[in-house]
C-alpha cells in the first residue's frame, strides 16, 4: 500500500472561516475534511496525514509557512502529495501551488492539486505541477476529489501519465513523443489540416501555442504636480447601504462614490466593506487601511500631485471571474478617461 498526504486550508480543515484565515500550519494524523473522501477514492494509496494552514497565513508568510510544512514532512514516509481541491478560491489555489511545488522540489515526490480555470493559481503553477481542471465551488468536491485520486494513484505507482486533455490536467507546456493510432504520417496529417483550414473547417493543431495576455506598460506621468489621480479598489469599500448592490463575491457590478467632501478618511460606520473574502473588521474600523485617503489628501495638499479625482471606484475581487473583471476594468477606465484622470492607484485585498 502506498502512502499519501493531503494539504487543505483552514476552511476545509474545519478550523473556521475567514476569521481563522491567519491559522498557522499544523499536521494532523489521519483524515480531516476532504481527506476522508480522497482516502475512500484511492484503491492502492492510504492518506496518512492532513496538513492544514490558513489562506492568509500562507499568503502573507509564505516562506515561513512552507518552512514549517517542510519540517512536518521530514520524518514522514509518503509516495504522493495532494493539495485542495481549491476550486475558484484564489488564495487557496496559490497556497496549494506553493506547497505542491515545495514538496515536489524538496522531497522528490509527485504532487497533484485541482483548481478551476479561473483560479489565478493555474497560470502561476501549471507548468510546474499537475493541476487538474476542477469545478467552480465545493459543490464539485466529489468529482474533483475523484479526479485527484485517479491521477494521484497513477503517479504514486509510477504509471505513465497521458496527455493533458486525456488526463484532465492543465497543459504544462511540455511536449512528449507519442505513437499515433492508427499510424498516419506527419506529412499526411499536416496536409489534412491545411485542406481543412483552406475549407474553413475546424481542425486541431498538434502544437498549440499559448497566447500571452500582457498589458502594455503605460508611460510615466510627466508632471505629477499637475496630474489628476484616481483611486480604485477591489476591496469592496462602499457606502454602508451598498447602493449599487455590488455582490459580496463573484461580483459583476462596480460603483463610483463622491469623496470631494472627505478630508482625511471615509467615516467608519458610513462606509464599510462588503467583500466576503476577508475579515472585514480592520477595514470597517478604519477604511483608510484599504483606501488611504489621509495619505492621498496629504500628498495633494503638499502639491506632490495635482488633484485627487472626486470619485473613487470599487468592486469586490473574490470569486470574480477574469472575464467580468476585465469588463468592469474597461468600464471604469472609460469613466476615468471622461474625468480626465491621468493615473490610478489601485489597492487590492
Amino acid at each position, binding site marked *: 500500500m502506498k502512502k499519501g498526504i493531503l494539504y487543505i486550508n483552514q476552511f476545509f480543515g474545519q478550523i473556521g472561516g475567514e476569521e481563522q*484565515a491567519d491559522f498557522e500550519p499544523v499536521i494532523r494524523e489521519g483524515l480531516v475534511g476532504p481527506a476522508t473522501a480522497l482516502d475512500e477514492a484511492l484503491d492502492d494509496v492510504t492518506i496518512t496525514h492532513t496538513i492544514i494552514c490558513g489562506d*492568509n497565513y500562507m*499568503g*502573507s508568510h509564505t516562506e515561513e509557512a512552507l518552512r514549517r510544512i517542510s519540517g512536518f514532512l521530514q520524518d514522514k514516509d509518503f509516495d504522493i502529495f495532494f493539495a485542495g481541491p481549491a476550486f475558484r478560491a*484564489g*488564495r487557496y489555489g*496559490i497556497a496549494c501551488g506553493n506547497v505542491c511545488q515545495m514538496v515536489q522540489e524538496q522531497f522528490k515526490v509527485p504532487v497533484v492539486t485541482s483548481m478551476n480555470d479561473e483560479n*489565478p493559481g493555474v*497560470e*502561476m503553477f501549471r507548468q510546474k505541477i499537475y493541476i487538474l481542471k476542477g469545478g467552480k465551488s465545493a459543490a464539485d468536491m466529489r468529482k474533483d476529489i475523484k479526479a485527484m485520486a485517479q491521477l494521484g494513484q497513477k503517479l504514486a505507482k509510477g504509471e505513465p501519465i497521458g496527455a493533458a486533455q486525456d488526463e484532465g490536467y492543465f497543459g504544462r507546456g511540455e511536449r512528449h513523443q507519442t505513437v499515433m493510432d492508427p499510424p498516419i504520417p506527419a506529412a499526411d496529417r499536416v496536409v489534412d489540416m491545411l485542406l481543412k483550414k483552406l475549407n474553413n473547417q475546424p481542425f486541431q493543431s498538434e502544437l498549440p501555442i499559448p497566447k500571452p*495576455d*500582457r*498589458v502594455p*506598460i*503605460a*508611460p*510615466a*506621468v*510627466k508632471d*505629477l504636480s499637475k*496630474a489628476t*489621480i484616481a483611486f480604485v479598489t477591489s*476591496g469592496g469599500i462602499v457606502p454602508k447601504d451598498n447602493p449599487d448592490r455590488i455582490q459580496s463575491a463573484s461580483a459583476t457590478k462596480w460603483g463610483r462614490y463622491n469623496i470631494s467632501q472627505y478630508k482625511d478618511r471615509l467615516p467608519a460606520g458610513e462606509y464599510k466593506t462588503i467583500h466576503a473574502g*476577508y*475579515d*472585514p*473588521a*480592520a*477595514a470597517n*474600523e*478604519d477604511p*483608510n*487601511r*484599504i483606501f*488611504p485617503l*489621509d*495619505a*492621498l489628501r*496629504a*500628498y495633494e495638499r503638499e502639491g*506632490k*500631485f495635482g488633484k485627487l479625482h472626486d470619485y473613487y471606484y470599487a468592486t469586490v475581487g473574490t470569486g470574480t471571474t*477574469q472575464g467580468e473583471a476585465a469588463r468592469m476594468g474597461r468600464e471604469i477606465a472609460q469613466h476615468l478617461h471622461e474625468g480626465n484622470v491621468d*493615473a490610478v*492607484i*489601485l*489597492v*487590492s*485585498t
Partner: protein
Amino acid sequence: MCNLVPIALTVGANRIVPTISIPYPLGDPNTPPEEQWKLRYHRVGVALDALATDISEQTVFRVKV
C-alpha cells in the same frame, strides 16, 4: 498596491507596490495609529513615484516602511 505580489505579477500588473496584508493592506490594527499612518504615507508615496517612473518591464517597487 497589493499583498499578493505573485498574483499581481501573474495577472500582468506593471507597477506593483507591496502592502502588508489582505484584510488591512495599509495599516496593521495591532500597531499604534501613528505607525499605521507612517506606513500608509510612505507606501502611497512610493506608488505616486512609481506612476511617474518610466519602466521597461513589470516592476515591484521597493518599500522601506
